């Protein structure tokens, strides 16, 4: 058995005006690997929302994308403040984004719902003061 293909990105929390780099790179790689456009688009959307959330809400983190024979798995792991109420955070429209971030067009409270809608599975593990780890898969 060969090792599954894996891409790992250190997502910086410094600069949210250039965020999205990891997602754009993943999209490019998946396209080169010949995945169907619909699969790529779903991965790209879910990954971008997760990446941006790490930048905006958690001061950055690590994004790992693994290509398994039957699915693409995305893991977004941060050491941010954690999510107090996951059920509430998952609701469309819920956002704690500050004004300066909202001015950039974020803060609709649609990121987590977009991640859910575009993936086949999504698991959120979060502990206040420790961080958040989100695991998502898209079946291929």
């Amino acid at each position, binding site marked *: 058995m060969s090792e599954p293909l894996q891409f790992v990105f250190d997502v910086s929390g410094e600069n*949210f*005006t*250039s*965020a*999205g780099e990891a*997602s*754009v790179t993943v*999209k490019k790689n998946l396209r080169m690997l010949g995945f169907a*456009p619909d699969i790529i*688009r779903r991965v*790209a*959307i879910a990954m*971008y*929302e997760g990446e*941006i959330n790490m930048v905006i809400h958690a001061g950055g983190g690590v994004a790992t994308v693994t290509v398994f024979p039957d699915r693409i798995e995305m893991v977004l792991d941060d050491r941010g403040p954690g999510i107090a109420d996951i059920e509430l955070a998952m609701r469309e429209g819920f956002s704690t984004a500050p004004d300066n971030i909202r001015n*950039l*067009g*974020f*803060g*609709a*409270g*649609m*990121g987590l*719902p*977009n991640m859910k*809608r575009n993936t086949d599975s999504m698991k959120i593990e979060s502990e206040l003061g420790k961080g958040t780890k989100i695991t998502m898969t898209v079946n291929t």
Partner: protein
Amino acid sequence: MTVKNIAERLSLRALSMPDPEREATCGYAGDLLSWVMGRAAEGSVWATVMTNVNVIAVAALADTAAVVICEDSAVPDDVISVAKEKGINLFSSELPIYEFCVALSQVIK
């Protein structure tokens, strides 16, 4: 209809047009990025007044055919260069979003 064709018909100013032959099939208007990300169809012409670089990332990831910055909203040079770098069709129009969408609906049938 191709993006180039739409641009000509609607007198759009091309800020970046790396893919003039891209087919545009519909339109989407909005400024909230996650909203656009979740709802804009692939191949749409996205009308917005937002002009920061995250717009380019959203356009790239959601696979829109073109972004049209309406109301002559000022687009920073670095945003234009990122659009070119990422292969994103980016235009500006003096029309308000509503007027632009009305005009777009006349050319995309």
